[in-house]
């Protein structure tokens, strides 16, 4: 399908090449290396039928849009303004390649520059790259930056997403780097333990943490930063960009590298992909950063334009000495985020963040008023919290599901950590209505 030639043209082109058949084009492949069987292994459907087929397949899924969903854990159901789908469906954006010819790619490049600028403003960081695959790989790449600068000891908070931790372990399989997990106290990093380790490893360590952390709670960024600076380490954070409209941004507490999953900013949950890795840093790291970065310049008549800069860091030039292997990144996702941030603007972002905060506290307090739940921590959270259930989690989740409610994530199920037995991770975004939250609470009250 999608071959634009008439049979006549094919014949004409073959005859121009002095060939009889299309098969003759492949004489360079030794005969014994060719596929013998002509059996069709795929049940072919054309456009008329494929739409129906895919519609049916999509309906074999239950969606978070047809449930009252409190699922989070790294992928969030935030509101997406209608403008975004309309604008990114312009084929000028989505059918272009990576901007290798800047003179005819100013649309993509300027959007890239604006993405970097908006992320820089949101994070209060000097430099942002153009994009990475997801929050997990952006964080792994940030660790790689410091490893290459000679830092061998990576302290990691145990409150980091277990999904990110899996990716980090994989990226550094069998490599010369020591990972040391810092335990938690009240579901946030144990500051005293961190201090002890930082002191032991003075001058040659960096600390990696997430805030709001995987359990939803806010880490004590000032205390962490103070310890890291006192013992001359480096600081790497993974944060929720939506939270930064009201929470202290990484640039204000001295993060060397700050990363994030950008899905919250206008991307659909989409079964966990495509996502958007955000990677920012202090200016001094700009030459060590992985991946594409867009910079401003002028053309030969002095007109402002944009190009990718510091290409000598990248694989196509530096090859085995490149700062990373990344080539294709997630540009269209970054474009979505750029449009999202522009539409929401200063007030809109604050509003989203505040809605998340207010609604999650509203649910939290209502749940705590039920006898089946108890607190696990007194620390503040942002849009997600962990809570302990006195009834078996499986039973609770199943009952809720029958009522078309996704009550949350069974933390033991995904971590296999005994200390997390019967804990539930619950997320409330701006999309959850009060009546849905009340319905959920009433249902639990009735059922247990």
């Amino acid at each position, binding site marked *: 399908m999608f071959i634009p030639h008439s049979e006549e043209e094919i014949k004409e082109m073959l005859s121009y090449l002095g060939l009889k058949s299309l098969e003759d084009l492949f004489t360079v492949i030794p005969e014994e290396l060719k596929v013998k069987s002509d059996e069709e292994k795929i049940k072919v459907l054309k456009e008329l039928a494929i739409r129906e087929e895919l519609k049916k397949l999509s309906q074999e899924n239950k969606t978070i849009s*047809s449930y009252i969903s409190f699922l989070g854990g790294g992928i969030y159901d935030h509101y997406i303004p209608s403008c975004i789908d309309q604008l990114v469906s312009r084929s000028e954006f989505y059918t272009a390649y990576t901007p290798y010819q800047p003179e005819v790619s100013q649309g993509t490049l300027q959007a890239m520059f604006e993405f970097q600028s908006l992320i820089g403003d949101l994070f209060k960081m000097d430099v942002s790259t153009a994009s990475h695959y997801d929050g997990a790989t952006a964080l792994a790449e940030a660790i790689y930056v410091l490893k290459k600068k000679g830092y061998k000891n990576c302290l990691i908070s145990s409150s980091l997403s277990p999904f990110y931790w899996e990716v980090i372990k994989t990226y550094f399989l069998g490599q010369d780097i020591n990972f040391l997990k810092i335990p938690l106290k009240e579901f946030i990093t144990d500051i005293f333990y961190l201090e002890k380790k930082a002191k032991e490893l003075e001058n040659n360590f960096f600390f990696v943490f997430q805030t709001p952390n995987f359990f939803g709670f806010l880490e004590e960024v000032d205390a962490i930063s103070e310890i890291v600076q006192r013992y001359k380490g480096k600081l790497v954070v993974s944060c929720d960009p939506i939270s930064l409209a009201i*929470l202290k941004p990484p640039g*204000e507490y001295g993060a060397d590298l700050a990363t994030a999953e950008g899905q919250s900013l206008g991307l659909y949950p989409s079964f966990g992909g495509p996502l958007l890795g955000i990677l920012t840093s202090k200016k001094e790291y700009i030459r060590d950063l992985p991946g594409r970065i867009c910079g401003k310049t002028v053309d030969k008549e002095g007109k*402002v334009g944009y190009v990718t800069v510091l290409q000598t860091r990248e*694989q196509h030039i530096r090859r085995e000495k490149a700062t990373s292997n990344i*080539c294709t990144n997630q540009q269209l*996702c970054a474009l979505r985020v750029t449009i999202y941030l522009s539409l929401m603007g200063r*007030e809109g972002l604050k509003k989203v963040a505040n809605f998340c905060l207010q609604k999650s506290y509203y649910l939290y307090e209502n749940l705590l008023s039920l006898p089946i739940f108890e607190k696990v921590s007194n620390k503040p959270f942002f849009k997600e919290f962990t809570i302990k259930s006195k009834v078996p989690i499986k039973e609770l989740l199943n009952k809720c599901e029958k009522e078309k409610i996704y009550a949350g994530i069974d933390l033991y199920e995904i971590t296999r950590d005994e200390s997390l037995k019967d804990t539930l991770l619950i997320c409330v975004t701006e999309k959850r209505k009060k009546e849905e939250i009340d319905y959920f609470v009433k249902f639990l009250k009735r059922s247990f």
Partner: protein
Amino acid sequence: MLEKLLKEYSKRGKFNDYLGEIDVEKKDIEKIIPQNLLRKDFEFIEVSEIEVIRHFIRLSNLNYHLDKGIYPLGSCTMKHNPKVNEEVSSYEGFIFLHPLQKEEDIQGALKLMYELIYFLKEISGMDYVSLQPPAGASGELTSMLVIKKYFMDKKEDRKIVLIPDSAHGTNPASVTMAGFICQTIKSNSEGMVDLDDLKKNLSEQVACLMITNPNTLGIFEKNIKIIIEELHRYGALVYLDGANLNAYCGIHRPGDVGVDIMHFNLHKTFSTPHGGGGPGAGPVGAKSFLVPYLPNPKIEKEGERYYFKYDKESIGKTASFYGNFNVFIKAYTYLRMNGIKGLKKMSQIAVLNANYLRKRLEEIGFSCEYKTSTLHEFVLTLKDFKRKDIRALDIAKRLLDYDCHAPTIYFPLIVPEAFMIEPTETEPKEELDRFISVMKKIKEEIEENPNLVKEAPHNTPVKRLDEGKAGRELVVKWD
């Protein structure tokens, strides 16, 4: 400036209220969160919806794109992106799926992935495919890690990865990231792996060879079988960079010749759009002895039920969840519309287009560094024009003036002034002929008025941009 920066539209007080009033009782933020965790000042843009829309529409007008005309970037397979892909991948039942829903609730998604895996297995001759890597380079890294773990478990200390000098830059970069050491293998005068040089570099220290076939010159490695046997004789493995799969779907299967592990680029061979630089997808296929090492989870089927399977030997994960699912839907749709027979025709026409273009360009005086026959792409050398002080870059820029996207330039590195052309099967003959006449015109211009080419482009939104200045000043965000 062509279009203002977003920031220049910003005025305090502009606000698009998408959320309306809050419906729960509001608390004082300061009462919930301690002062020292709060943001003090939040300076951010404020732009109205209509201005945002106009801004991005104006930006879109500055892009050249595939829906406008030929995009012959070699190694990138810029083929038509069917519109039905975009439609079906936006169905609510796909985009509102959360990765942590129960298996019972996501059977449609698992089924789609399971079947896509099956299609890719059939096309490649591999035993299983992990869809997880989000791009080609990630597929390479994943493959290197699989090989690393395999040898770690076998307690064999192998540090070296062999890479032909024609390889794509992501290959050596992935090798280093995985903690291996690169060793380059020379190409021979036919533009293929030099067997003698390969043998010289083979030892029990070698973990694998990374090979691209057809290679980046568009040339099929006719000794592929012998090459693989050589590697295997030393207990080393063979990884195939599948970026060039568009050359032989339904005609040749890498798995059948003994390739142990390979990656696919769904955003090349299987028509999913490039998005101006992603998202793509770079699934990895492996032979059965390597399958347990592939990323977790795998997708299996029992009766009519699909489920996730975790292997303890696995390298772990190379993405947060299951990969770029939305891209899978597009590739799946394309494969269902084509079938293996359709893919065969696809490759045949891709090779027909490339050969037609090559011969016509050679007839008007352009030439390839290597004379060997090529499949879906070919690489011209433009070194002859240096006598007029014209470089590949200049000719690329002049093409833009004639509403053609330029081919890939300066890659592969073994061709001086390389001009790598891949038309793909979806370029109509008329468009190829237009491209040929433009190339002919530029050739004449070089003889008659080389400055016209040297100074190109002339008709694009901006003229040639000062990359030196951009690199020196490093303005990478607005003030």
